[in-house]
C-alpha cells in the first residue's frame, strides 16, 4: 500500500483506538475520545499539508 492518505487514516485509526481504550472506560466516552484523537491527527496533517501548499519543493 503506497497511498499516503490510506496510511494516514489507518495509522491515526490505530493510535486513536489504542488511546481511547487505554484512557477511557465508558463505551461512549471511548468513541468520543477516539474520534477526537483521529480528527486531530488526520485533520492536523491535512491542515499542515494545505498550509505548505504555497511552498513547493
Amino acid at each position, binding site marked *: *500500500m*503506497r497511498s499516503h492518505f490510506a*496510511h494516514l487514516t*489507518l*495509522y491515526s485509526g*490505530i*493510535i486513536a*483506538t*489504542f488511546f481511547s*481504550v*487505554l484512557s477511557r*472506560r465508558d463505551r461512549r466516552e471511548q468513541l468520543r475520545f477516539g474520534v477526537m484523537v483521529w480528527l486531530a491527527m488526520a485533520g492536523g496533517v491535512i491542515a499542515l499539508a494545505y498550509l505548505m501548499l504555497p511552498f513547493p519543493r
Partner: protein
Amino acid sequence: MAEPQPVAPAPVAAEVPPQRIAAALVVGWLVPGAGHAMLGRLRRGIVFFVLIMGSFGLGLAHDGRLALYSPREGFLTGLQLVANVGVGPADLLARMSVYGEAAYVVPETSAPNYRQRIETFRDRQRSAVSAYGTAYLWSAGLMNLLLLMDVWDIAKRRKD
C-alpha cells in the same frame, strides 16, 4: 425520628500480590494484551492484542526498520532498539526471518556476517514504503511498553 444509619465504608479491592504483578508484566511483554487479560480485563486485552499485532504486521509488511544497535550512534540506535524490542518475542521472530539470525547489533566490519547484515538492513531502508513500516513497527513496540505501565497501575489499584 429514625437515627441515621452509619455509612459502611466502600469495599477496598485487595492488592494484587507482587508475584502476580511480576507475572502479569512478563506475560504482557511476551504477548501484548495478555497482562490485562491476566488481571481480569480480557476484552481490553484482546483489543490491545489486535491493535499491537496489527500494527506490527503492517510494519513488517512495509519493510519497517528492525534497528541494529551501533556504538557510533549509541543513543539513537539504542532508543530504536527499545521501540522494536518493546513488542516482545515477535521482534525476535521477525529478526530471525529478515536477517536469518537474532541480529541486534551492527557487527565489526571484519566480522564474516557484516556485509550480509548491513545489506539486508539497507535493502529494507531503500524500500519506498519503509518509512510507513517503521512508524507502524516502532508504534507497536511503544504501545506495548505503555501497556506494561497500565498493567502496573491496574495491579496497584491506581486505575480501574
